């Protein structure tokens, strides 16, 4: 029960920030896919930087555990390509479609309905996919620091430098 309340509070905060930064709009999402408006990329990378530093700091202090998903190249690559195709058509992703509906952009409702059907369809296809695509290139739960055999803070530093360089370039180009 308490977990449900935490979920709601966390979602409200996230939805609030998403709306304030105007990143849940179709125009912003398509703007990013068309490489003409990088607002959502700025938002995403900023949250990833803070999240990455914070979570790894807490992990080093022994306070939290990472929740790593398996790397399955077949599923990740083919699924990613299919997701991108759908995202470009809909203009909202699963989380932001709820946010878009919250600010009155109700075309998101058709997207949400489609996503429910997509989830149901995937559940039907799962037994077949599990034996094929989801066995291709299965590397298990791997991370960059682990496969490269280096300290995670080196990766974090490189990531932050890369993201900041991108930010500088976006601002110079005014995108």
């Amino acid at each position, binding site marked *: 029960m308490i977990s*449900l*309340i*935490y979920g709601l*509070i*966390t*979602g*409200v*905060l*996230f*939805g*609030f*920030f998403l*709306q304030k*930064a*105007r*990143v849940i709009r179709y125009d912003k999402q398509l*703007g990013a896919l068309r490489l003409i408006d990088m607002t959502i990329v700025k*938002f995403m990378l*900023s949250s990833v930087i*803070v*999240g990455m530093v*914070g979570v790894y700091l*807490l992990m080093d202090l022994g*306070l*939290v555990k990472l929740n790593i*998903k*398996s790397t399955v190249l077949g*599923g990740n690559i*083919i*699924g*990613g390509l*299919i*997701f991108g*195709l*759908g995202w470009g*058509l809909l*203009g909202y992703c*699963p*989380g932001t479609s709820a*946010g*878009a509906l*919250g600010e*009155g952009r*109700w*075309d*998101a409702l*058709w*997207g949400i309905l*489609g996503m*429910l*059907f*997509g*989830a*149901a*369809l*995937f*559940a039907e*296809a799962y*037994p077949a996919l599990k034996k094929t*695509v989801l066995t291709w290139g299965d590397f298990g739960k791997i991370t960059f620091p682990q496969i490269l055999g280096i300290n995670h803070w080196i990766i974090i530093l490189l990531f932050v430098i890369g993201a900041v360089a991108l930010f500088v370039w976006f601002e110079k180009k005014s995108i």
Partner: protein
Amino acid sequence: MGSNMKDRGWSPYLAGALTGLVMVLSVWITGKYFGASTTFVRSAGLLEKIFSAERVAQMEYFIKVVPKIDWQWMFVAGILVGSFIAAKTSATFRWQAIPGMWQSRFGTDPTKRGVIAFVGGLVAMFGARLADG
């Protein structure tokens, strides 16, 4: 253009960083990482259960991802509520069936937009689940 200038909102860097902070607190306090697409699977299962509970109970994917209302389900519902509060308090809430960029390219037919949005949602969710994202 004038209304666009007024409707800039918060800096995406600031709002993104605050989101990162909430993410860290969430992991620290409850051990929960952000996600949304699993909620659509659980919801689809909950809806299918209304029509055929026995079938859902036997499906491998719904055994793996149990149809129920959990932390993430409330998180996704919260996104809707949070966005509504932010929109209402900044007078940016607007009932809109056709996004601006869509309209300037594909016109004002809401059916056309609805069909493409539905198909897009279906395809996107299938892909997201395949990638386990």
